[in-house]
């Protein structure tokens, strides 16, 4: 199965090079989607035929960047994708465990589930818990981490999972669509590496995601 990693990146100059280097042994190709960074990432990264850099001329958001990456993967005949963040908070060594359920045909989408511990701010933990619970109750889908960005997807399932959210609600919408279309899924525990201050979903993002969760149910 041809595999590809999609890395959405916005002004992530410091760690991306290292992330690419660590991810490459586990996939056939990497697509970095530069989501309108101040300085084009193409100029910051070493050229490598196994790494493609696509650039959004303006910042559209993580959801739009992931979609651009998937479109590229479809055009080039890849069969499974791994979504991984550019800031180095995911451990690339866990990519095989994310891809395994897809390769073994046990799942079409695999969600990485973080362990919530003290390094994540209390407000972020509480917000994640609230969003996850709301999603579980409203959509009857047992995914224990609604905001983790470390995931794997079988390309053939993309049509069912396809999201509209251009920004951070993409993580939640993927799960909602998984539930709506009864896409077989598996959860895999992942570790989270905290390099510096917490850079995940903000309180405002959380409120927006909650509004989306409710809106998707009604509309």
């Amino acid at each position, binding site marked *: 199965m041809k595999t590809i990693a999609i890395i959405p990146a916005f002004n992530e100059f410091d760690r991306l090079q290292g992330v690419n280097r660590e991810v490459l042994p586990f996939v056939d190709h990497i697509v970095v989607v530069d989501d309108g960074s101040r300085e084009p990432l193409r100029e910051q990264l070493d050229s490598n035929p196994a790494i*493609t850099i*696509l650039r*959004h*001329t303006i910042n559209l958001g993580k959801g739009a960047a992931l*979609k*651009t990456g998937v*479109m590229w993967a479809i055009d080039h005949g890849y069969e499974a994708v791994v979504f991984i963040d550019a800031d180095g908070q995911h451990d690339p060594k866990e990519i095989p465990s994310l891809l395994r359920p897809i390769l073994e045909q046990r799942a079409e989408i695999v969600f990485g589930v973080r362990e919530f511990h003290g390094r994540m701010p209390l407000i972020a933990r509480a917000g994640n818990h609230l969003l996850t619970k709301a999603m579980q109750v409203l959509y009857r889908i047992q995914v224990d981490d609604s905001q983790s960005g470390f995931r794997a997807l079988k390309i053939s399932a993309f049509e069912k999972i396809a999201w509209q959210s*251009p920004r951070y609600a993409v993580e939640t919408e993927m799960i909602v669509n998984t539930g709506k279309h009864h896409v077989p899924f598996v959860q895999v525990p992942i570790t989270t590496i905290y390099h510096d201050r917490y850079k995940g979903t903000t309180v405002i993002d959380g409120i927006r995601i909650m509004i989306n969760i409710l809106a998707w149910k009604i509309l």
Partner: protein
Amino acid sequence: MNIIQIIALLFVLWMTYFSFLHYRRREFSLWEFAFWQVIWLGLAVVVLFPGPTKFVIEKLHFTRAFDLLTAGGILLLFGATFRNYVVVRRTDKRLEELVRKIALSKD
């Protein structure tokens, strides 16, 4: 003329000037300019001669012309908000598709 009428007339003059400004900058077509002029002129007529609106006010169980204007204004605002929402969503979507197309074509 009471204070509300004076404020309303100043508002009408202000908006007339703005409509003209947009027309002069070619941001409005002649038809768009005419449409907004009719709206502002209508508002001025209702403000200056509220008498003929009495029939409508009684029919709709309002007590004053001003209440009718307020209710009408709120309805218009809801309409304009909805229209803006639709236009912004459509523009966002088209922008996203365009940016993606450029990104994929430059690969």
